[in-house]
């Protein structure tokens, strides 16, 4: 490896700027080693109050994905809290909607920032980061005392799925901060006014769709047609409910025939029927904002989404709309998982760069974020739940969050999730395209599953793609 000629864009440009005439082409073959890590100064002693050894006067650079949650939570909640302990650590706050474009060159150049909220449509591939040793091992964070209570470890204050999902190559290195709860969202007011009941079985769900359709008041169902991933979510959750959690585990592990199981067939058939009969007109050409706004305008009754929905729609939601959420109904009567089974998944992924100048401060920043105060204030500000247990206790929160947290409590241990879509980008794109076709009738349920299975097999047989297991 070491004698392979290599280039780094930054190093190259720097060289090119210094010796424009003569060195320009020669620089191509000149190895440009990344700048040596600047953390050469003597390590700071650790203590219970400063478990990672944060240097008191070394700056900390934070990059926030400026998306649905904005960036105010970082500036006004997390950073002031961090400052209470480390007044002399200068926090360089930054925000962007394009994480990859802005930060990928920083990684390639060897000087990444400490804390990154690696989220949004253009996040940097976690697999690529992990493969390259760019992710700080956050296990010390789990074993450190929590911000609030020196006798409790951080590990015990957060949802255990965070650790499982945030583990790459055997190291816990990605902290999902927000607990996304997926379900079917509706207006509690609309359901109350019309006497519509939450469907407990799929037959009731179809009957409800029929009732709503006949009432002529609104369309029964819609989803973000331009982004069919909004629809494969309930489809997969339904399959897990019918066939048990292993349906999703097998899909994640790229097992042979994982997509074409009976449970997947039942789920695909069920949703194809909704696609054929009960969609709001024009659904396939509308995006999430347009369909969600249609729901706010009482043009459609239900749509699949997650617990970020209420915050995302706060400017268009009528004051008495009262968001509510219900889980996937029972499908077969002999479903392997009980009613109330939920898809919950930590998201809004924070990482600390291993090769940054001050990773200790990065971990300490995450520890501050996981305090009850930081998490509770975050939930109140952006109307969503965090992975910190009990952070919303005693807070005045919105109807949607209340409904979602109740669903989580009801689900208990019956929570499922999947990760293939984050692990294998091309498989995700294939599933998105195919799901759009399934819902618009371009693919039968069988053909739909075969098509995704084919892509999954392709990836499985491609030795150049790094594989993950759960």
């Amino acid at each position, binding site marked *: *490896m070491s004698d392979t000629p290599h280039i780094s864009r930054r190093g190259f440009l720097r060289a090119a700027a210094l010796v424009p005439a003569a060195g*320009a082409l020669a620089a191509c073959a000149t190895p440009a080693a990344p700048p040596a890590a600047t953390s050469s100064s003597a390590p700071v002693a650790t203590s219970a109050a400063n478990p990672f050894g944060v240097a008191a006067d070394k700056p900390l650079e934070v990059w926030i994905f400026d998306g649905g949650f904005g960036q105010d939570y970082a500036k006004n909640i997390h950073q002031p809290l961090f400052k209470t302990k480390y007044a002399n650590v200068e926090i360089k706050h930054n925000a962007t909607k394009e994480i*990859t474009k802005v930060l990928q060159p920083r*990684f*390639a150049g060897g000087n990444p920032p400490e804390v990154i909220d690696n989220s949004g449509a253009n996040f940097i*591939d976690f697999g690529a980061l992990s493969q390259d040793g760019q992710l700080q091992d956050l296990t010390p964070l789990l074993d450190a005392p929590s911000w609030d209570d020196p006798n409790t470890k951080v590990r015990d204050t957060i949802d255990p799925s965070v650790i499982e999902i945030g583990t790459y190559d055997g190291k816990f290195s990605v902290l999902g901060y927000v607990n996304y709860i997926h379900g079917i969202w509706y207006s509690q007011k609309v359901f109350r006014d019309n006497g519509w009941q939450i469907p407990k079985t799929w037959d009731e769900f179809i009957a409800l769709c029929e009732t709503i359709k006949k009432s002529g008041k609104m369309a029964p169902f819609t989803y973000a047609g331009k982004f069919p991933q909004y629809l494969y979510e309930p489809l997969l959750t339904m399959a897990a409910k019918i066939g048990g959690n292993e349906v999703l585990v097998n899909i994640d592990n790229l097992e042979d025939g994982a997509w074409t199981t009976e449970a997947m067939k039942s789920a695909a058939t069920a949703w194809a029927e909704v696609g054929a009969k009960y969609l709001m007109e024009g659904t*396939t050409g*509308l995006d999430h904002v347009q369909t969600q706004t249609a729901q706010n305008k009482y043009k459609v009754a239900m749509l699949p989404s997650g617990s970020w929905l209420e915050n995302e729609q706060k400017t268009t939601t009528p004051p008495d709309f009262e968001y509510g959420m219900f889980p996937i109904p029972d499908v077969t009567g002999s479903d392997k998982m009980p009613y109330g089974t939920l898809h919950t998944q930590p998201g809004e992924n924070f990482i600390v760069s291993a090769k940054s100048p001050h990773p200790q401060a990065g971990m300490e920043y995450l520890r501050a974020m996981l305090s009850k105060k930081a998490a509770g204030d975050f939930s109140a500000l952006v109307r969503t739940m965090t992975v910190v247990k009990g952070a919303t206790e005693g807070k005045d929160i919105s109807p949607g969050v209340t409904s979602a947290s109740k669903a989580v409590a009801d689900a208990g241990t019956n929570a499922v999730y999947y990760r293939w879509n984050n692990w294998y980008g091309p498989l995700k794109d294939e599933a998105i395209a*195919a799901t759009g076709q399934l819902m618009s009738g371009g693919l039968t349920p069988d053909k739909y599953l075969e098509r995704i299975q084919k892509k999954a097999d392709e990836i499985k047989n491609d030795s150049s793609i790094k594989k993950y297991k759960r």
Partner: protein
Amino acid sequence: MIFNRYRRGLFITSFLAAPVILYVVYVISPYIQAFYIAMTDWRGVSAMPRFIGLDNFERLLDDEKFWLAVTHNGVLLLLLPLITIVIALFFAFLLNVGGGHGGRKGIWGSKFYRVLFFFPQILAVAVVAVLFQQAFRPDASGMVNAPLMALGIKPIGFLSEPAVAFWSVLGVMIWQAVGFYVVLFSAGLASIPRDMFEAAQIDGAGRISLFIRVTLPLLWDTVQVAWIYLGILALDVFAIVWVMTDQHGGPDSSTTVMAAEIYRNAFHYSYFGYASALGVVMFFFTIGFAILALRLSRRERIEYQ
């Protein structure tokens, strides 16, 4: 004498040095780097990409999506110049020659139309893309579908029907390109001597034969230039597809193009090495087209006195 020539050479070199260096550093060297990166498995974050030879190019041969994208570029390469040039010629003729008697006047209101046709050209591509995203909306808020719905016709999924979406993209590209070529052809028409039209008219040529027998042959040079420009536009189309279509080249890859696949592999999947390989292939397609176009367009010119 020799000294003078030497000084002259030095003088010219000193002026050329800056642009040539800039060109080498910012254009040529990234190209060379791309060729190198194409032979690595670089995922964008490592400072040490692994050299894997031609593996990326082998993989590319089986990449159905990329070849679908190439087909789309191919169809665009055929249709975009053809349709755009036909429409632009027709408009330019009407605006400059086609009106009334005398042969050199446009139809009524031609000055207004000239501005109108050029208007799409001054809009940024991203603006056009977002504009048409709204115009193509499949509900009553969509400018194109609203009248259809008012007539009781089901709305057309201009961007959501895989069978329709590609033609929507082509339509938008033509809409945006036509204005520029109307102006280009108008300029070409202006340089044709007036007596040619007058002579033809005296011989009894109508509008149609005036167009086919006089205008078109004398504009042939300009048409060829337009064809090359539009061909390049068709090969490196990106922003319209990326911004306007669902799933960046969808639905179901029905509108994807080479540049979109390169971007997707680089910035969505972090396969920078593979994306560079796609870029290298696209580079050769473009170079090939340019050589072909220049060969075909070698032709004797007509000199006016």
